[in-house]
């Protein structure tokens, strides 16, 4: 079948450009918040078992992922999304399970080979994302050599930058158990890179990111609880949780910050595809480094060689991200995206109007957003849990520049509001 036979009405070029710019902005903001999620986790005690760390984070993620959509749009919109494309629940749950396993693998990877080796290895997931985007979802088709060079070259540049940054930022990397650590990091990269298949599938078909993440968390939480229980047993897990009481707030806060980053990453995936959205959100490493250097005083007294690595790595990574940002999909490439969406529409008997409108960031025929008592229950319940845990939280004895922490947090919040307003104005959070 030629592409012409499956092409629905072409999307207006100006609208396409606006959505691409919005997707790029979402990718960069995702990087800021995903990187910021490392800060609270740093405050948690280092002697907590990896599965317990991952489980508590996932609980934070779960609470945030049920209350954020309730706050933004109300949960009633989720029901209408599921009625339109019920099959996507399977992919959302599957993606959640993959995230949980990948996240646990990263804890083992950092333990065994340190951040310097682990981070660039799992960040290679963007290269896998480009591969899946091209082969399964017709991304980068007819996009011209310049855009290919921008995306692929940008992703490789980011990989190189990530390697330099990680080498500089983890001079205290633990030694030993290298093969298992490398395998764990590669496994996390494989899972995260492949997890973008469900992401792209959902957004190509029209599901709203806020609805997708709601089901994503079910797969995530069920998998993580099963892993923690099978590895530790009920008694040991409970003991670990009780002993980790002062750290629970920081781990759950890390989960909350991560959710906000992931939400922007989902919008980036929706509007610029996985081949561009994933590498852009991988700028999280730059933000992790900002937190490390200015807030936690890492690299103090480091050699000039280390600083050269940091500056060089940051520049290379930023240049790679800019190359991708300037390689937006052309009208011709977007026609191929529509072809992939048409394939999904036929396979699952979806309403073409729903799919096409969603690709344009619109939601025709949707009931006006409203929040019910269930939404307010989610929001107030989550807030109460965080307040109670926050009251029992303790800052560990370590160097923390609170002024710089506040300044970086303000920048992150400014990005959050700027991108949130842009999303609302352009798509009404569609």
């Amino acid at each position, binding site marked *: 079948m030629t592409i012409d036979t499956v092409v629905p009405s072409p999307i207006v070029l100006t609208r396409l450009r606006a959505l691409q710019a919005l997707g790029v902005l979402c990718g960069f903001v995702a990087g800021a918040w995903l990187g910021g999620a490392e800060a609270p986790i740093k405050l948690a005690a280092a002697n907590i078992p990896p599965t317990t760390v991952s489980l508590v984070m996932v609980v934070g993620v779960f609470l945030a992922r049920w209350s954020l959509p309730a706050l933004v749009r109300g949960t009633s919109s989720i029901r209408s999304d599921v009625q339109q494309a*019920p*099959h996507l629940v*399977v*992919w959302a749950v*599957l*993606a959640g*399970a*993959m995230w949980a*396993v*990948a996240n*646990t*693998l990263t804890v*083992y990877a950092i333990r065994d080979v340190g951040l310097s080796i682990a981070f660039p290895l799992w960040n290679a997931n963007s290269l896998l994302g480009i591969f*899946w985007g091209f082969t*399964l979802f017709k991304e980068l088709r007819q996009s011209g050599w310049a855009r290919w060079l921008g995306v692929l070259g940008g992703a490789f540049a980011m990989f190189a930058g990530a390697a330099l940054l990680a080498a500089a930022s983890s001079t205290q990397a633990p030694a030993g158990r290298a093969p*298992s650590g490398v*395998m*764990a990091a590669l*496994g*996390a990269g*494989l*899972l995260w890179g*492949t*997890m973008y*298949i*469900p992401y792209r*599938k959902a957004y190509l078909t029209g599901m709203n990111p806020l609805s997708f993440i709601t089901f994503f968390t079910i797969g995530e939480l069920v998998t993580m609880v099963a*892993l923690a229980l099978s*590895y530790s047993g009920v008694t040991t897990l409970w003991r670990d949780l009780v002993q980790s009481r002062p750290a629970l707030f920081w781990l759950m806060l890390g989960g909350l910050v991560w959710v906000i980053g992931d939400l922007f990453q989902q919008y980036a995936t929706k509007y610029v595809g996985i081949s561009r959205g994933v590498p852009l959100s991988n700028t999280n490493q730059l933000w992790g480094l900002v937190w490390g250097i200015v807030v936690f005083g890492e690299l103090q007294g480091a050699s000039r060689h280390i600083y050269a690595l940091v500056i060089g790595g940051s520049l290379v990574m930023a240049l790679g991200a800019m190359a991708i940002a300037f390689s937006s999909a052309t009208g011709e490439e977007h026609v191929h995206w529509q072809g992939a969406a048409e394939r999904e529409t036929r*396979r*699952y*008997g979806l309403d073409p109007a729903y799919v096409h409108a969603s690709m344009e960031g619109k939601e025709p025929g949707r009931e006006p957003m409203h929040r019910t008592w269930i939404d307010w229950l989610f929001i107030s319940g989550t807030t109460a849990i965080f307040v109670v845990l926050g009251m029992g939280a303790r800052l560990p004895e370590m160097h923390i520049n609170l002024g710089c922490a506040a300044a970086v947090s303000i920048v992150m919040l400014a990005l959050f509001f700027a991108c949130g307003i842009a999303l609302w104005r352009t798509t009404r959070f569609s």
Partner: protein
Amino acid sequence: MLKEPDAKRGSLLKAVIGDIHLWIPLVALVVGLILLHGLR
């Protein structure tokens, strides 16, 4: 003969199971779980 909603559910299930986009992530998940099991 299946009632209409059952038939619709059945064909949806068939479409999901026959979709390669399901099997690639599933295989990756199984690989990840085996790896995790080995690292314990």
